[in-house]
């Protein structure tokens, strides 16, 4: 499904939304703000005034965004001093199928995926984001980084209408994992977030992760699990409704949302997105870092058959990690991190251990682990059979 990209089309859709009272007043202010951001020569001089670092002297690197559950290439321990890490997000409103029944949602995405891509930097680095609202879109968007400081996490400086872009630079001063999300104002804030418009940033300490004693912790692989709650309206017969464009379901969706009971709770944007051929992979002996983000609602990750060896439940890498947890808590609007060294091969289920949400709403992922079985850790002493008499 593609929207026809013509000025008339976009304009008429936008005016339709404004007429419906869906577009906030800032949609009008948006272009003016964006045009100052477009003046790229003027904007940095304003920022330099407040900055403690000589920005112009810092090396610049581009970070190539990858779709979750994968992370962009990154160093665990930083080499050299702070950098400016340039990233680009293309905001795309697109129809996604979120379950086997063919239920559709007009997702609002950063770079086309739910969740949006993970950004990885080190403490002291700068993230310089170019945020583009594609001209095929119909809604205004922005971004609020929980890792950033000031201006509503950048939300006040990044409102872009379809066809506009803005550039935001912020300094990563808090090491940890943090949610980012769209926050365009009023009911549009939760509306955009529960239509997929969220992701996470990882700010690593420059010398990497450490246990409570300060001993370095390395990981062999890393996965980013974004948990998404969806609230899909139904028709009179109970079937999930379908819509022709983003924003069209607003009134219906708000009715479902205000009851606080999601119709779907999924990982990586759809039921089964991290199972079967798309299951996560690991080997016995490997340490895997799992980052779990939930931008809206509480969750409780659990690895069936394993543990959380080291868990930064609240997401701050300045805090000492908890150890050997069975289940950990992710507050709505936050991300947490966990490492686990796999000690047995087989299949592990990574779930939200509200098992109703895991099994009936979709919050189940799998990890396929190769390697040698360890009889010392577990052994089937007798197969199921009749009870001894």
């Amino acid at each position, binding site marked *: 499904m593609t929207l026809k990209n013509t000025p008339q089309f976009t304009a008429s859709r936008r005016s339709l939304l404004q007429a419906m009272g869906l577009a906030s007043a800032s949609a009008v202010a948006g272009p003016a703000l964006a045009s100052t951001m477009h003046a790229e020569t003027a904007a940095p001089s304003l920022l330099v005034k407040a900055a403690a670092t000589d920005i112009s002297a810092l090396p610049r690197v581009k970070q190539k965004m990858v779709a979750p559950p994968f992370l962009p290439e990154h160093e665990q321990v930083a080499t050299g001093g702070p950098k400016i890490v340039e990233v680009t997000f293309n905001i795309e409103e697109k129809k996604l199928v979120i*379950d*086997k*029944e*063919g239920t559709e949602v007009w997702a609002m995405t950063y770079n086309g995926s739910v969740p949006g891509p993970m950004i990885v930097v080190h403490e002291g680095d700068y993230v310089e984001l170019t945020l583009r609202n594609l001209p095929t879109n119909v809604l205004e968007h922005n971004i609020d980084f929980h890792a950033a400081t000031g201006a509503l996490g950048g939300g006040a400086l990044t409102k872009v209408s379809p066809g506009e872009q803005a550039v935001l630079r912020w300094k990563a001063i808090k090491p940890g994992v943090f949610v980012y999300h769209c926050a365009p104002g009023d009911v549009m804030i939760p509306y955009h977030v529960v239509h997929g418009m969220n992701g996470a940033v990882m700010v690593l300490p420059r010398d990497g992760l450490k246990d409570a004693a300060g001993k370095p912790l390395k990981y062999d692989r890393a996965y980013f699990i974004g948990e998404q709650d969806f609230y899909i309206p139904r028709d009179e*017969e*109970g*079937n999930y409704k379908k819509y022709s464009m983003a924003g069209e379901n607003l009134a219906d969706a708000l009715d479902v949302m205000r009851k606080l009971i999601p119709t779907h709770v*999924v990982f990586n944007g759809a*039921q*089964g997105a991290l*199972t*079967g*051929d798309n*299951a996560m992979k690991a080997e016995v002996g490997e340490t895997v870092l799992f980052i779990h983000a939930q931008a809206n609602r509480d969750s409780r990750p659990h690895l*069936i058959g394993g543990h959380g060896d080291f868990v930064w439940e609240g997401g701050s890498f300045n805090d000492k990690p908890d150890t050997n947890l069975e289940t950990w808590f992710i507050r709505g609007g936050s991300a947490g991190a966990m490492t686990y060294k796999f000690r047995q*091969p*087989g*299949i592990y*289920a990574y779930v939200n251990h509200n098992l109703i*949400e*895991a*099994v*009936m*709403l*979709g*919050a*189940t992922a*799998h990890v*396929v682990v*190769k390697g*040698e*079985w360890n*009889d010392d850790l577990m*052994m*089937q002493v007798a197969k199921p059979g*009749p009870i001894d008499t």
Partner: protein
Amino acid sequence: MFTLAALKVTALAAVAGLSGLAIFGQFATRPVEPEMIVVELAGGALSVAKYEVSWSQWKQCRDAGGCAFLPDPGMPAAGQSFPVTGVNRLDVEQFIGWLNGKSGKTYRLPTQAEWREIAAEIPRPKRAKLFSDPRLAWAADYGSMQQVSARIESAGHFGAVSSGVADLAGNVWEWTSTCAVAGFDTAACPAFVVEGAHETSMSVFVRDPAFGGCAIGLPPANIGFRLVSTDPV
């Protein structure tokens, strides 16, 4: 097992109560019997329903007081015949009891072996075992099951084998009469084999398989059923 038997009795009592309300319906309703195709199996001829039992057939049972439960129709195209899904093994026993009582026939579910023979032409995708170590047998078949759309389609949508029996390769898994647990007779069986694109088994109480997933593997997309009979044609 006592619990299960007691529950079945309770369920039947509920139906008896319902049928009392529907005496009038007993005169009005002639059950729509399935279209049967004679298939030669190794053990002899078997009449096999061309299609899975439809939602409208089930509705007839419900309206006549023979079935206590009426599932959601799912997402059918208007005016078309589509399979009933979301019915558990106890619901199915009610339907068959009602249909046989009304028609004087002896419809039943196929055994797993019969189902496999009827569907023998359909290739069952084989994938290498994920693990060869017998200690990992519990995980070895992971990934061998194909994710299919669960959208309910009209009868015949998924095509037929050469005998004419349709929709065996569709997205509706079918209850069988084979107990999934060794050593149980049918009356006390806690879980039956369910056949479709891959073999699985379900507790007699399950109407809708898991949506999100299992601890390992993939649940069937939908569960319905098909009737067979050895009545003379």
